């Protein structure tokens, strides 16, 4: 399970990934912060489309292993209601050396953030909520690419489209 409503267990992710060939262990954790674009944030709600999300994260892990020649890559993402400071995502990478481990972890996290069907809804201290606007999922139509910026901003209902 790479998408789960349960709190993420970092100890289990690390313990279960031991590899005698690896001299580097890199962990990235994304935690819920209390602000976004100048507004106070009280909590988040993450929703996901699991059938595609599980498949895509597994594919990203495999592609990271092949691309960076690392020994282990695992990414998990939390769903449901998360409070400030709770972990939303962990990526755990083991490799022979630190350079490829750092690069692989960044690559895997970037791809999960940009491609996996997970949506963040922010709840604000001044009332209300909004879905954070993100990246179009790459789909099967040839030549299509996203014009959404890498930096996720709050959804304002703008008409951005495939080009």
């Amino acid at each position, binding site marked *: 399970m790479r998408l789960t409503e349960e709190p993420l267990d970092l100890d289990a992710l690390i313990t279960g990934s031991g590899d005698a060939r690896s001299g580097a262990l890199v962990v990235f954790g994304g935690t819920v912060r209390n602000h976004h674009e100048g507004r106070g944030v009280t909590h988040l709600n993450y929703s996901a489309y699991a059938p*595609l999300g599980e498949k895509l994260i597994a594919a990203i892990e495999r592609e990271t292993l092949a691309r960076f020649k690392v020994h282990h890559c695992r990414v998990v993402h939390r769903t449901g209601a998360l409070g400030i400071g709770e972990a939303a995502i962990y990526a755990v990478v083991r490799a022979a050396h630190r350079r490829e481990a750092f690069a692989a972890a960044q690559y895997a996290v970037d791809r999960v953030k940009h491609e996996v069907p997970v*949506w963040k809804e922010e709840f604000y201290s001044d009332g209300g909520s909004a879905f954070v*606007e993100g990246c179009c999922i790459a789909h099967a139509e040839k030549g299509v690419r996203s014009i*959404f910026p890498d930096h996720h901003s709050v959804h304002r209902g703008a008409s*951005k489209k495939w080009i």
Partner: protein
Amino acid sequence: MEVIVDCYGVTARLAGGPEHVIGLTPGARIADLLVVLGARWPELGKVLPGCACAVGDTVVPRTWPLAGGERLALLPPVSGG
């Protein structure tokens, strides 16, 4: 024929709920479904160009032919992490 559309993220809010049964003419494709959705919920229509559609664990193109009875997922731009 009818298909079931499961709306995720902001699309559920813009369509007034997460699940909708949509009637279509036989031979309709995903593109035709999106036209119907946009006509029924104009605010949803504004974000449909940036949405992907999936059947099960597969993203399907706008040209995908619908047979009726499918359950489709409407996936707006993603914002995980």
